[in-house]
């Protein structure tokens, strides 16, 4: 298994969640029959709410027509589970979920302070 990429699939759609940096995920989905209108990312790190995502352990993102997005301002070393679904009767109804994935617990670095390797191509 990889702690940084999770791909889930059901009859309705496919959902991919990928760690990009210690504070950022890339999420994509390939819609099948079900157009999702809401994305929910939940912090499963187990920490008290004040130490978890957005101070309450989850974040909702209203979707329009896009099929991918970057979730930013997350926390290093935290575990995240992402669900797509709809809001019905005031409650979130997930259609598919993927994860958890874990952001690296590396400190945030300034990319310019240490040279990345030259590359052959």
């Amino acid at each position: 298994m990889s702690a940084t990429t999770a791909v889930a699939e059901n009859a309705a759609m496919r959902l991919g969640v990928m760690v990009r940096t210690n504070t950022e995920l890339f999420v994509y989905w390939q819609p099948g029959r079900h157009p999702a209108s809401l994305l929910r990312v939940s912090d499963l790190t187990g920490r008290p709410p004040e130490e978890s995502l957005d101070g309450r352990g989850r974040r909702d993102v209203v979707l329009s027509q896009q099929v991918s997005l970057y979730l930013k301002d997350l926390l290093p070393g935290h575990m995240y589970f992402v669900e797509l679904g709809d809001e019905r009767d005031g409650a979130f109804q997930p259609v598919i979920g993927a994860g958890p994935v874990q952001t690296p617990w590396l400190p945030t670095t300034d990319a310019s302070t240490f040279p990345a390797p030259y590359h052959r191509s």
Partner: protein
Amino acid sequence: MAADLAFILHAHLPYVRPAGKEILEERWLYEAVAESYLPLLWGLERLQADGVPFRMALSLSGPLLSMLSDQGLMARCRAHLAHIAELAEREAKRHASGPFAAAAACHRDRYIALVHDLDRRGHDLVTGFRRLQDAGLVELFTAAGTHAYLPLLGTDSARMAHVEAALSEYERHFGRRPAGLWLPECAYAPGLDHVLSAAGIRWFVADTAMVAAAYPPVDGPVALSPGGVAALARDTQASRQVWDAKHGYPGEYAYREFYKDVGYELPAAEIAPWLVDGVRCDTGLKFYRVTGGEGVTKEPYRPEVALERVRDHARHFAELLTSRDGLVVAPFDAELFGHWWFEGPLWIEALFREMAASGICGVTPSAWLAEKGAGVPVARLPAGSWGDGGDYRVWLSSQNDWLWPEVHAAEREMEALLDRAEMPGPTINQAARELLLAEASDWPFILYFQTASNYARERVKRHLDRFKGLVSGQYSPTRYRPEDGVFPTLNARALFRRRPPVPSDGPLRVLMLSWEFPPNNVGGLGRHVHDLGVALTAAGHRVHVITVADPGARPGVEELRGMRVHRVARPPETGNFLAWVYRLNGVMVQEATRLPGPFDVVHSHDWLTGQAGMALKARWGTVLTATIHATEKGRNGTIREPIQQAIHEEEWLLTSAADRVITVSQAMGREVAESFRVSPTVIYNGVDLPEPAATPPPRSFDGPYFFYIGRLVPEKGVHVAIEALGRMANRAHLVIAGKGPMEGELQRLAQAHPDQVHFLGRVSEAEKDSWLQFAAGGLVPSLYEPFGIVALEVMAAGVPVIVGNTGGLAEIVTHGSDGIKASPGDAGELAAAMDWILAQPADAAALGAAGRATAAGRFGWQAIALETAAVYRGTPAPAHAPVTPDDMVAATKR
């Protein structure tokens, strides 16, 4: 004092194999052969010929090995170099006198030598490297597959396919498997180490920050992953010295300038024969030196001056090594030396000569690990890479993110393809090649830096299109084989390993992993594993258990009621519990691999054996089942301390990797589902009906007593029981059996009730039965309890039980019917229940009898064995007849 230098080069190029006319990108290989690979070979062979002792490691990626061993491609390479030699000859004549004479002559002589040497070798560089390995001077290893960025792939089978493809290609050339594997871009994620370990890999290179952030913290540049693979961290100082554009050696003003190539400098008409489709490009002939910073007028290159600087820089680096100690890991892209830093191969040669003069020769990673690896600490590394920011941002960005969904979709199609028996081998093999080629990390890298974006985009789309065409039967495999012929001996069905299904009926071979096992019972887990193993064995399955020997005891194997129990040597305490657990898991894996396999199921009990379960799943492809008996979050309410966080993450890794997850109660199931987003199956713990105690307890009191047995930790609520004693209307005693960190505090609380609270410490099974069966009641006043096996033991003994109304206890006991529930932490309610038992002896006896019937019926081990086997097989639990107390007694005596 001198450091051990592990000098490591990684050679890789994207697989480019033109089908017909010349393309620009095939020159990547020719330039690397001319500027890096052959000059490197020359330097190392001169060292060998001169008897200079040196040791280093060199990774040759799978695509590179495929291309270097492709006679057609190497013939094109030879032709290209001969063509450049003609240009070099012409330029040398042009500059026969004047400021560029030395530079032009240097390049002419060099290209003539390259062509001659290539002919002398029969166009075969691989043999040259193999000879250096056979001489014990160079440790050759390889990189994952087509240089795929493994953490961003979507499935483990894709990751394993890249690793296996590379190892097979390596084996084809070198007749053995390598010990190390280069993770492309040093990209790593927790869990990947099991993929490497399963393939027999013992080390990889990690970035500095990843090892520095390892948990538990490590002191030094090497950490052993939980999967047993050593991560060697690149040394910051060594890297900067060579790599840093501003402070590194390659920026030296006397060295050859990279960017001013005659391909761009000469008039179009003069250079036209050396261009591809008229596009200006590098020829390799560069006659200027770096000269200075930006804006300076470049001056002619003087090879003799550059050579002096090479010696100075080699001496400087060697002095750095003699001023340090320990291991210095210095990994670099091989093409840095020669292609970008023209004098780089000469510097490597000069460095080893300088080192030899100082009495040091370097070390290969495998030799260093063989000598000093035993002391390497075990720790988990975070995800990371050696790219910008130390993370994945380069290979996953707005410039290239479009390719990942398509790659992941193709991976899933590939898995489905393996089940299509009618698919011809050549077709599925070529489809696998196309997928592997589409997954090369080169494409997202090029797209990110926008250096040859159109080509990279076209390559990804081309390979995915061909993959789809092959899968659909639209394309013939022979059509693309010449052009996409990487890994010529690839066998897709062997590469993408399919897990063998668990037999749907008949006996199963089960390997259970448990850190505790009777007589070493810390909590109820050991007892559970023992009883489940006995019941599965009684049902006809073959059960092996791997556990740890008691402190001071010797490891060994015993036959226990049909089970085979392997007690492995207890690792020495390291002062860090997590590191100790990782060591234990490593020992368990070693033991497991000695057992006669294969097993149908590996069953890990709790996170403490999770890493071993994951390792064996990766190694054998076996179904992994995990029983989660309790969680760290549940025990603590929330996660705060680093060790709690680490355990929480271990629980997540195990539940994520497991094919089946079992919990011992509905409450635990909800907890696991909420914490880790998996769907566990609930199978309750079981209990044996005890034989009647032969003798009463060794001590008696001036009144009835209540009995508690278990660990003395806060969540067990023993302090609530002591407080309840003081609130009772009747006088009673409280007998406490067990040990734990809260014992001192409980003894202090007990001073409020002189002569009423009695601490027994640890008791034997017989003593426990005796104390329990003569008690007025059994107390399980837990504040948190995933299941509560003790409550079942009290009920099985026919003794009235009072439990905290929480977790599994709330599910076991039906209040007023077969036991009494009290609110967790409420001493008043507990006292009232204890008083009721003393005041209503007949009703209490009836309650105890009802409890015994519940224990025998709902919680019989035969039924539990049936349910567990059904989970192993992935089938619904079979309907079964209710189990009677007589069945239970018979089962426990088998």
